[in-house]
């Protein structure tokens, strides 16, 4: 048993930190709230770092790395609120790779940007595959129509992470029987959403009976792709929480009130330690999820849902704690705290929301209590 990073993984994480350290992502996130033109194009950074090909197998031109590695990169992106379409990209490349799709090389070199449009797999037999309708409800996933010579895709999905950055969508859709199928489309309408969090790219997608190419992947692989999205969101949140904690700790050391550093007051100290507690828990589950997808696929849905649930709650808490610790300045645009807060507020409601992940953990253990026993 060895639950630590390898040298290569440490290196990957450091390289990501370095690459992102050269770009003023936080300033861009703030400026972009008022001026969308301020959004930085980080795609060249991602391509130079080799991230698009991370999960693509080596013969197809990728790096052939594992889920654990992808989560480490997501964590670094979260730490600086970098707007890289990573959450959409990774599951898309994983599915394209499973199907040995001819576009893989172009993806690995950064020429093409596929993004995954997730659909929520049913928890019970009574449910179907769904997407968000844009008004807080769920709607049926887009449908593949196979009546003519070529399959076509019809339907829509709201609040799709990274969709505006895509030139190719890998869509979790259903066929006439309601079974999931993966459809690749490049003729789509994406309407970018001016989101609450300018550091995150989100859009509504519409498929108006457009030509689609079906991927040779099965229901299990589409289910896996949903959970990969959950794990990526979790890992990204871990990075954001870690950064928020660092800023809160240093302010608590430097800011004085009543003749003492505010961090010496228990109310402040204990709230910050609560951030640490949640961070440590979230990171443990990030590691579990990263390991499980490649080594214990049967546990991956549980691991990814637990990671999303704990990391999502951690981010909510850390964002509010960061504001509290900073007092007035924490509630102004001058500060980074509102950026973290906006990230937390938007993200907790995307891709099923983190409450759905929590619910799934509960469902999983109710049906198989042994999942929580050691070994």
């Amino acid at each position, binding site marked *: 048993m060895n639950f630590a990073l390898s040298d290569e993984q440490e290196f990957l994480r450091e390289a990501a930190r370095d690459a992102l350290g050269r770009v003023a992502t936080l300033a861009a996130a703030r400026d972009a709230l008022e001026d969308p033109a301020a959004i930085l194009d980080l795609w060249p950074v991602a391509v130079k770092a080799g991230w698009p090909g991370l999960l693509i197998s080596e013969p197809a031109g990728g790096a052939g790395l594992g889920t654990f590695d992808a989560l480490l990169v997501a964590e670094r992106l979260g730490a600086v609120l970098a707007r890289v379409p990573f959450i959409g990209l990774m599951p898309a490349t994983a599915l394209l790779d499973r199907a040995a799709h001819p576009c893989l090389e172009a993806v690995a070199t950064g020429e093409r940007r596929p993004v995954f449009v997730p659909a929520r797999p049913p928890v019970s037999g009574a449910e179907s595959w769904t997407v968000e309708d844009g008004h807080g409800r769920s709607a049926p996933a887009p449908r593949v129509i196979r009546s003519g010579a070529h399959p076509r895709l019809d339907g829509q999905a709201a609040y799709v992470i990274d969709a505006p950055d895509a030139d190719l969508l890998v869509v979790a859709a259903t066929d006439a029987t309601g079974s999931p199928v993966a459809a690749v489309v490049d003729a789509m309408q994406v309407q970018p959403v001016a989101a609450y969090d300018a550091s995150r790219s989100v859009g509504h997608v519409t498929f108006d009976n457009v030509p689609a190419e079906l991927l040779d992947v099965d229901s299990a692989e589409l289910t896996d792709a949903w959970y990969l999205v959950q794990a990526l969101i979790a890992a990204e949140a871990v990075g954001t929480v870690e950064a928020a904690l660092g800023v809160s700790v240093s302010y608590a050391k430097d800011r004085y009130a009543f003749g003492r550093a505010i961090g010496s007051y228990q109310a402040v100290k204990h709230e910050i*330690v609560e951030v640490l507690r949640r961070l440590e828990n979230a*990171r443990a589950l990030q590691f579990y999820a990263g390991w499980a997808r490649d080594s214990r696929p049967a546990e991956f849905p549980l691991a990814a849902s637990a990671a999303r649930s704990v990391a999502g709650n951690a981010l909510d808490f850390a964002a509010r704690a960061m504001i509290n610790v900073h007092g007035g300045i924490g509630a102004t645009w001058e500060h980074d705290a509102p950026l973290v807060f906006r990230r937390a507020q938007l993200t907790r409601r995307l891709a099923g929301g983190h409450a759905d992940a929590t619910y799934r953990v*509960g469902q999983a253990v109710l049906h198989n209590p042994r999942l929580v026993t050691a070994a």
Partner: protein
Amino acid sequence: MDLDDTPDQAAWRTEVRQWLARHQSDAPPARGDFEDPAYVEVRRSWQRSLTEAGLVGVTWPEEHGGRGRGPVDQVIINQEMARAGVPGHLDVIGIGLMGPCIIAHGSDEQRARYLAPMLHGDEVWCQLFSEPAAGSDLAGVQTRAVEQADGSWRLTGQKVWTTSAQFAAFGMCLARTDPDAVKHQGLTMFIVPMDAPGITVRGLRQISGEAEFNEVFLDDVTVTDDMVVGGVRGGWKAALTVLMFERMMIGAGAETIGFRPDRVATALAAAGADDPRVCHRLGELTAELLAVRYGGFRSLTALSRGQIPGPEAGLAKITTVNALIAAADLVCDTLGPGALTDEEWGYMTSFLPGLKSAGGTEQILRTTIGERVLGLPAEPRVDKGVPFRELRTRQIAEVAA
């Protein structure tokens, strides 16, 4: 990054599993009444069997009766016992805390005398640390140890919340030998035979109605000078070793403190409770417990590489206890008030609130972690550098005013 057993660990797991399969039928029930001497006896002989099979104190060095194995091998035992549904060794405090303390701070003679009977369950140990006026502020203990002309020591004072004292053979007792020193410096650790003249043990009934802990009165109890562990005035250092092992033990997960989250899920499923609110609450607490498990693997990896566990182990304790409290609440909410008098759920509900204090209260842990792990500024301390005697006088005056 790999959670699978190494070939060596897999072989060890097989050995443990096979032994348990052969002897499982001899195991006593995992829960029982520690006030009943017959139950204590069966637990004692079960510990003896485990020890003879080499399954107790595996991380202790071989020269001290252990097997010199790594912490992961101990976890494998815990996992296999949980899987088999059998209890572990009776003397959790001896094996988990006092043995390691004697190994670290004791003399060769003490190791030779006490470790083997401890391992075999022949002599159970208890922890005589807390007092009515010294819990979180443990260095404030007032039990006095006065040196006699012949070099022996005479102990007088009161200890409290002492788990297992009712059947323990020895207690590890933190006492004050020098009241004129600053409080952490005037302490010495003593081994005290629990049958020594002058010792009175009185059971303290807990919320559950059971009396697992006790108050212990020491009234001119004489111990010889070879009972000092870690040297005169070396008591605080020895106590810190015990506290470190205690945090690790309580933070090691729900199963190691005797609760089975899978049984919570089973009970809810049996009650047909799968509405979204139940699922959400179950999901929340399960995710936290899973986090403790995998976080535990991370610290275990560090431990296997020779790193010493820091105060952050206390975070796992906070998470575990709170998640279990949420679990007990959820079961009782779902099953109704009758669950409160159910043997398993009633006990869980009643026992856990106290566990928030045991092994360091949540506030104390958060303060320590904030200061030692995050480097946050310490609280001002009015007791720093003040001789203990003066502190006491001040305190008495303040309370009177």
